[in-house]
């Protein structure tokens, strides 16, 4: 059958070629362009006629041969697939069989065959494009993506597994190239990394495993949503930088922590005392501590009360004879003194005023004008150096320059010895003498009243300043002996010497009353016989003569004399100071005291001398207590115990309207 057809065809072509000579030529050779199968069950072949042919007159026929068969088949269907095509349906299609296909173009003049094409349907499969391409925008604010989905082409039977398709899609931004993504056999695909706000075109195609790619599906346009500018990455950056800044700040703060602390929490200033050493305090050495605190040069003690330093010397005078304080060696003194006291007689004619050691001291002091001055100066200075003033603390006495001064060479001694003291009685031993009290207690002495019991004439007291002051403290020196009336305070010079020496030897312990402070009795009392006890008299300093002598005038009229009672009120004036002419400047006292009070005061006052007697120093000779002066003006004899006011008063002391100074003091001769 095939051969017959073949020979017929050949004959026809010959005829055609023969007839072509008569202006009719056979058609040109057609050409099979392609044969494709869409589903691997049917296939279609297309041919193209030659250019030369006239479409109206040329007919085409397709003939095919199957493998291992010589049967020529013609195309079963020329219409389904369109013009110049041949469609092979399922019945005519065999898979895994080679088809030999030929197209013959025939016109009135002949026919022409195309070249044969051998096809195997299994390998010419080109499916249709995937269908239902859809793109869905998915994702949250952190990221969006496209979900592209499609379906297999309608004709391709993938359900039975006859055809296995693989897919491929492509996306394109406006102005960019296509990006292809291979999807495999799946029918869904996600596209990430979208540019926010960009418009994408997406297409998809498919292909069987051994076949041809399908055409691209129609484009689907999709727009990516706008993403938030601050994504999670942005927050991470912000957090990172803030942490960095925080670290930087903490580092700076650390570096400048000191200054910041200083600024925010200013340090509370603590108490600071210059020179104050905490360690010393901790060690318990208060002395050093205070030493460190103290300004060098200042006395360690607080400034004492001037009042306490004053010693009031009461000079008891018989009459209104003037009491002159002069140097023993001063001839004037000798001349002026009443009673013709021998200036050289050291003994004290006083009945016992000068029994106290301090009395002698005073006398020693008074033996020299300078001493007086010194005393006065000291008094002025409030040095506490006043004679008889026993200020607490031996240091004070030690520091007394006067005593040191008194320790000058033997000249003083000689002087003192030779001097005739005009002290009738320099020191009034009083029971209430605060001196001894002070001595005992070491407290400040009040004004050491030196009262003279008897005053005819001011006995000369020749204290030996040389020895006595050495190492002697005022306190010691103020050891008054009990003033016994009966006793005579007058001692022999030798005694006195001894006394003095003994006094000199006395230790500087202030508290020990046993110290053999030079007593008044040691002082060279005037050689006058012990005069009967006489109440003290007060003298008034009238003036100071040119010889630097105080002219005293006894004040008998000031107060009534009493027996056993102070003859008069004791008026004490405070020595204000020394004037330029070495005169005593006295301070007027205002207060007045009753005699009773004075008496009381007197009684109240202790008798320092007695106390001293009790506490006599070892080895000291007993001093004969000078006769006690009963009424010793308490006021005068009062020792202001620690009272600063020189105007002694415990209670009230009666002072004369006029400021009267204790003449004893005033009577101290000046050099």
């Amino acid at each position, binding site marked *: 059958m095939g051969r017959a057809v073949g020979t017929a065809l050949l004959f026809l072509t010959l005829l055609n070629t023969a007839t072509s000579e008569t202006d009719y030529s056979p058609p040109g050779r057609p050409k099979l362009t392609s044969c494709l199968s869409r589903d691997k069950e049917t296939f279609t072949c297309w041919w193209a006629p030659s250019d030369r042919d006239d479409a109206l007159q040329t007919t085409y026929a397709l003939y095919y041969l199957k493998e*291992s068969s010589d049967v020529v088949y013609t195309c079963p269907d020329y219409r389904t697939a369109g013009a110049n095509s041949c469609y092979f349906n399922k019945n005519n*299609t065999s898979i*895994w069989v080679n088809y*030999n296909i030929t197209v013959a173009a025939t016109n009135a003049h002949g026919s022409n065959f195309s070249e*044969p094409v051998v096809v195997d349907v*299994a390998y010419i499969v080109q499916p249709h494009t995937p269908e239902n391409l859809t793109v869905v925008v998915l994702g949250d604010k952190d990221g969006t993506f496209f979900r592209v989905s499609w379906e297999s082409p309608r004709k391709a039977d993938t359900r*039975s*597994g006859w055809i296995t398709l693989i897919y491929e899609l492509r996306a394109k931004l406006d102005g960019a190239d296509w990006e292809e993504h291979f999807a495999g*056999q799946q029918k869904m695909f996600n596209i990430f990394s979208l540019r926010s706000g960009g418009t994408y075109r997406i297409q998809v195609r498919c292909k069987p495993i051994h076949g041809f790619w399908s055409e691209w599906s129609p484009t689907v346009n999709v727009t990516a949503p706008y993403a938030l500018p601050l994504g999670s990455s942005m927050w991470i950056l912000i957090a990172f930088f803030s942490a960095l800044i925080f670290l930087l700040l903490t580092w700076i703060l650390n570096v400048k922590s000191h200054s910041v602390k200083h600024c925010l929490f200013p340090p509370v200033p603590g108490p600071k005392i210059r020179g104050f050493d905490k360690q010393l305090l901790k060690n318990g050495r208060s002395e050093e501590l205070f030493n460190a605190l103290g300004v060098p040069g200042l006395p360690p003690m607080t400034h004492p009360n001037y009042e306490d330093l004053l010693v009031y010397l009461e000079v008891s005078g018989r009459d209104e004879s003037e009491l002159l304080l002069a140097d023993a060696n001063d001839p004037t003194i000798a001349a002026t003194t009443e009673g013709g006291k021998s200036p050289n007689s050291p003994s004290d004619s006083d009945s016992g005023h000068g029994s106290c050691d301090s009395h002698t001291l005073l006398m020693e002091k008074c033996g020299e004008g300078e001493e007086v001055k010194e005393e006065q100066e000291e008094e002025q200075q409030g040095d506490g150096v006043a004679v008889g003033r026993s200020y607490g603390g031996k240091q004070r006495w030690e520091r007394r320059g006067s005593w040191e001064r008194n320790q000058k060479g033997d000249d003083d001694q000689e002087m003192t010895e030779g001097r005739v003291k005009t002290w009738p009685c320099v020191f009034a031993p009083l029971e209430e003498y605060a001196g001894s009290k002070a001595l005992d207690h070491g407290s400040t002495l009040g004004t050491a009243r030196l009262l003279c019991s008897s005053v005819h004439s001011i006995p000369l007291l020749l204290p030996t300043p040389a020895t006595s002051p050495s190492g002697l403290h005022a306190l010691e020196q103020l050891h008054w002996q009990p003033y016994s009336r009966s006793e005579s305070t007058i001692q022999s010079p030798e005694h006195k010497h001894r006394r003095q020496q003994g006094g000199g030897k006395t230790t500087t312990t202030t508290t020990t009353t046993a110290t053999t402070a030079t007593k008044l009795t040691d002082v060279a009392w005037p050689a006058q016989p012990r005069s009967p006890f006489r109440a003290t008299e007060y003298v008034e300093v009238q003036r100071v003569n040119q010889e630097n002598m105080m002219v005293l005038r006894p004040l008998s009229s000031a107060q009534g004399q009493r027996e056993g009672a102070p003859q008069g009120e004791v008026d004490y004036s405070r020595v204000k100071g020394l004037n330029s002419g070495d005169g005593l400047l006295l301070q007027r006292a205002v207060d007045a005291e009753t005699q009773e009070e004075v008496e009381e005061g007197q009684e109240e006052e202790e008798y320092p001398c007695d106390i001293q007697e009790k506490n006599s120093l070892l080895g000291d000779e007993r001093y004969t207590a000078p006769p006690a002066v009963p009424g010793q003006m308490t006021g005068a004899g009062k020792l202001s115990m620690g009272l600063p006011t020189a105007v002694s008063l415990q209670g009230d002391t009666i002072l004369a309207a006029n400021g009267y100074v204790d003449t004893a003091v005033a009577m101290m001769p000046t050099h």
Partner: protein
Amino acid sequence: MQKNKKDEWSFAWLGALCLVLRTPTDTVRAAPICDNGQASCQVLSLADLFDRVIQHSSRMHGMSNDLHSQFEQYFLPSRNHISNRVNRNCHTSGILTPNGKENAQRLAVKELTEVILKLLWAWRDPLWHFHQSMAHHDDFNSFSSNKALVMGDLVHELRTGVEKVAEKMQNLGIISNLVNGLRSPEQLLPSPVRPQWSLMNDYDLLFCLRRDSNKVQSYLKILKCRIVPENDC
């Protein structure tokens, strides 16, 4: 002397290592299919088995396709020579194989499985011979020669896999016992028409191989979608 010994040792060691580590690139190492009762093995489902054999068949077909095209390009540049030959008898032409989808679907599972197995069995010897012939050809690149060798392994493994599938299906009751005697290829083809594969040239052999691998792949896919229809079908 010591150096030689050292070399020998190193070579021996290297050789042992190579033997141990050598994995053919194109060989699909399938997990051992376990018998019932073996706990250590991984029990595969029918679907998994099908997937495996289908993967194997795809690989086989791909390789055969590459071989054919390479051979055609290298040895036979002119296409007319090949395309004019309409009658090309493969030695497996005697095996009745469905040549369409409907035909394949009309066949029973068992028959279809048997067809697959017949085809696979028919190609065991020709491939081995083909490999031998390819090795002697200097003009054929070693890559193709290696591919021929790999083809033989593939067909072997595919056949084993399909047999396992058949066995599984028999266990599942899907099919009855298969026909024994599938292994002898001489019985498959009718005697008068039976071509001798030894007479075929290499090109025709590759051609036939490609077609048969395609058939196997298709048949397996149909079987799978018919027996264990899943998302792929």
